[in-house]
């Protein structure tokens, strides 16, 4: 419009000297460095929220302890024979790593849904930042929570007799793999959190997806005793793939197939759900 030759001198000449650096990117695109800085500032926000509300760490701290104790002592003897609980520790701990990731990821959806009920999201969305950075910051902090949960799980595992048959590098690879897969799961739950109306709905929907995936997998028991159709399902279940990969990385054994399957699943899930989640976030009113 010709009538809008507005001189852009915010706050007027009388105000304090402008502190905002002059930007050269005329189309307003956010550069990579600025984007990382924004993600950092928003991740700091999410971390400070945890500091303010320490109870929100309960799931990451206590879930691994309770789960590993329950599974090792309740199912361990039944699956690996009485007195062989320590054998089962080496079987179930890598599987539980996969499960922790999934449970933490579920919390992300609930958190995002809650966050949206607050005015601060409006502020973020009227600021000159990439809208995806709000979501990525959330993921960064949740991955931190996932690492804490994994560390506690492994610590408990070692107490109960877990032994690494390979090397520390293999263990780190197993942890890295569950982080990569966990991050991809978070996009699914962010998408759910942005799409469903209430946090309860997100929780309910998540349980519906989670239960069959968790128990219809090789996490808790070997799949060889399952009926054929279920075995086929568990073989393609990404949680089985991750559990197998982590197990073989820690205990030794062929890893190529399960590692590639896990990475493939992670990539596919992220490629499909991340753009959908970001576009949902952008359009949400």
């Amino acid at each position, binding site marked *: *419009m010709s*009538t*809008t*030759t*507005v*001189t*852009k*001198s*915010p*706050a*007027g*000449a*009388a*105000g304090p000297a*402008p*502190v*905002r*650096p002059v*930007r050269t990117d005329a*189309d*307003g*695109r*956010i550069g990579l460095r*600025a984007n990382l*800085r*924004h993600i*950092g*500032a*928003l991740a*700091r*926000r999410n971390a*400070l*929220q945890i500091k*303010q*509300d320490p109870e929100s760490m309960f799931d990451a701290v206590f879930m691994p302890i309770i789960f590993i104790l329950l599974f090792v002592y309740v199912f361990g003897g039944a699956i690996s024979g009485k007195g062989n609980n320590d054998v089962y520790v080496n079987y179930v701990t890598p599987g539980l790593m996969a499960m922790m990731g999934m449970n933490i990821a579920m919390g992300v959806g609930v958190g995002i849904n809650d966050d949206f009920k*607050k*005015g*601060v999201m*409006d*502020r*973020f*969305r*009227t*600021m*000159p*930042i990439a809208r995806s950075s709000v979501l990525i910051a959330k993921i960064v902090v949740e991955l931190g929570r996932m690492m804490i949960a994994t560390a506690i799980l492994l610590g408990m595992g070692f107490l109960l007799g877990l032994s690494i048959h390979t090397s520390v590098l293999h263990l780190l690879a197993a942890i890295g793999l569950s982080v990569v897969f966990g991050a991809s799961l978070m996009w699914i739950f962010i998408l759910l959190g942005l799409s469903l109306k209430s946090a309860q709905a997100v929780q309910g929907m998540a349980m519906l997806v989670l239960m069959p995936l968790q128990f219809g997998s090789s996490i808790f028991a070997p799949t060889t005793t399952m009926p054929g159709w279920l075995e086929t399902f568990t073989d393609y279940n990404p949680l089985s793939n991750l559990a197998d990969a982590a197990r073989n990385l820690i205990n030794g054994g062929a890893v190529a197939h399960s590692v590639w399957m896990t990475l493939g699943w992670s990539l596919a899930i992220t490629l499909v759900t991340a753009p959908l989640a970001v576009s949902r976030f952008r359009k949400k*009113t």
Partner: protein
Amino acid sequence: MVDMTRSQTNAVEVRGLVKHFGETKALDGVDLDVREGTVLGVLGPNGAGKTTLVRCLSTLLVPDAGTAVVAGYDVVRQPRQLRRTIGLTGQYASVDEKLSGFENLYMIGRLLDLSRAEARRRADEMLERFSLTEAAKRPAMNYSGGMRRRLDLAASMIGQPAVLYLDEPTTGLDPRTRNEVWDEVKRMVSEGVTVLLTTQYMEEAEQLASELTVVDRGKVIANGEVDELKAKVGGRTLKVRPIDPAQLPAMAAALRETGLDGVAGATVVPDEDALYVPILTDQQLTAVVSLLGARGFGIAHIGTHLPSLDEVFLAITGQKSTAADEITEEVAA
């Protein structure tokens, strides 16, 4: 289209803005201008489309039709550039309640690409300015309503916006806190910020705005300078309570005899033992008081009140606003 007799350029130009939510026409062809460095009050009842307007102008909603240019940027085609020049303080506190005042402002500084030191300095400066220094380290959830609004305003001012939207900034605040917020807004305007203010209160519009746009059911039903509109609506009403209520009829008769527009419409309200006198100008106010004094009427109490939103609507449209029951823009949010 644009009033070229005015010397300044427009910081906000809205033409034919339309936004529908299903069957609901939240905005049904809105035109308005805000001159640079001034405050435009957008006055309307709940559900008139005020919040939808602000959300369209702040890139939170994409309008269905029409154009809006803010600080030289088109809200639909240049949202990224626009976000660098606007600030928004909504009806609902748009700060993170779990974070302290300082952490909120520091975060916003970092999101606006200030260095760490600069963001810290600016946050401290804004806390000081909005009298929040003492509460700087407390989580915002423990703030009073007024402190929260002030933090909200401080958050909007970190980036030194050229245009600031205030969406019902004092709804739900007590009168003292309301005055505090008004003072802050006046101060920001004196520093050259252009403000688009939505409100349900004529009093707020009169306090802050130089020009007024009255909206109802997604349409502009009147606009102009605040004084013009006030004259149209009938200005203020003077309420006079005599020492001796028996004198009320005589007082009313004396005022009617003046034949002045407005003043002659003086009416006795027996329930309140008071006389209501419509006044259009300050001169009329003086005239009424001196006339009553000269005739020897003893006055116990005297006060003026502004027309309520209902009275404004009645005067402009000849009918009461019905928007509140029919359109609920919050539902779409």
